């Protein structure tokens, strides 16, 4: 939660600095974004590779829940499709395409990575939607975890958190579904964290 606040704070600080007119002219924002993204990707991989508990965690997972990340991916993308239909209904000229919605939906709560990817590929409009949509998904999961547990079962709290089920929403999973679900939750978050760059870039490559 503290990290989320810092991250959102940086975004808001950027908006304020620019609105106040303090931004230096001629900054190579595109280049900085590209290289920053490479550094970020390498660090994400490094962090996952160095995690000694990962393989131990995988051994504790019941075979029946190995497919859980797949349910989350398919369910989220179907939900994204529904969201696109709603956007079509609301706007006479929709500001986002079906592919945009699919790419934003593939953040699975991983707002930082999905938004910087889409900033490079599709510009700040889609990137900001990705940031807000995936941040909201994490917040909604934290807020409504008890309701989700009641209405949709113990595995659904994990699905709701998406990629964040390994860190920020893990406490909500443990509190509402039980300790037995911690290993599945970490495994699920790990798989989705790795999947986000692949699936988002897959949709970007379709443009």
């Amino acid at each position, binding site marked *: 939660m503290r990290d989320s606040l810092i991250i959102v704070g940086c975004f808001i600080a950027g908006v304020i600095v620019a*609105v106040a007119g303090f931004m230096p002219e001629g900054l190579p924002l595109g280049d900085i974004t590209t290289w920053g993204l490479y550094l970020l990707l390498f660090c994400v991989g*490094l962090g*996952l590779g160095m995690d000694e508990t990962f393989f131990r965690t995988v051994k504790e997972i019941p075979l029946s829940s190995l497919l*859980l990340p797949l349910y989350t991916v398919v369910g989220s993308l179907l939900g994204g499709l529904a*969201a696109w239909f709603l956007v079509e209904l609301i706007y006479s000229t929709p500001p986002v395409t079906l592919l945009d919605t699919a790419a934003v939906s593939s953040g699975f709560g991983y707002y*930082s990575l999905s938004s910087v990817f889409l900033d490079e590929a599709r510009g*700040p409009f889609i990137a900001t939607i990705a940031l807000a*949509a995936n941040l909201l998904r994490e917040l909604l999961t934290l807020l409504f975890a008890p309701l989700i547990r009641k*209405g949709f079962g113990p595995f659904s709290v994990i699905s709701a958190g998406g990629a964040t089920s390994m860190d920020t929403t893990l406490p909500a999973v443990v509190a509402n579904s039980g300790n037995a679900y911690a290993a599945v939750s970490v495994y699920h978050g790990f798989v989705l964290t790795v999947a986000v760059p692949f699936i988002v870039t897959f949709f970007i490559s379709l443009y």
Partner: protein
Amino acid sequence: MLITILILLGGFLAGLLLQGRVKLPTGVITLVSICLLLFILGLEIGSNRQLLGNLPSMGLIALLVAVCTLLGSVTLTKFLTRRKKEEHGA
């Protein structure tokens, strides 16, 4: 797309090799790079009047996507994990 995959895999393999040998503050480096990138995203939006005017629209679409993806994933998971339990019981 290929560069993305290669960098991520490269990081993962480097992590496996370094595992238990050195302690790197990957969490801090990740956080700092995310902060830098989102600060830049903020700069882009703040310096573009048209984008600033679009903030309500972006917020609405984001809320729709957040609610729909969350509901979609929990619904499918409910359906598929419940069916599995019934199979076990049978």
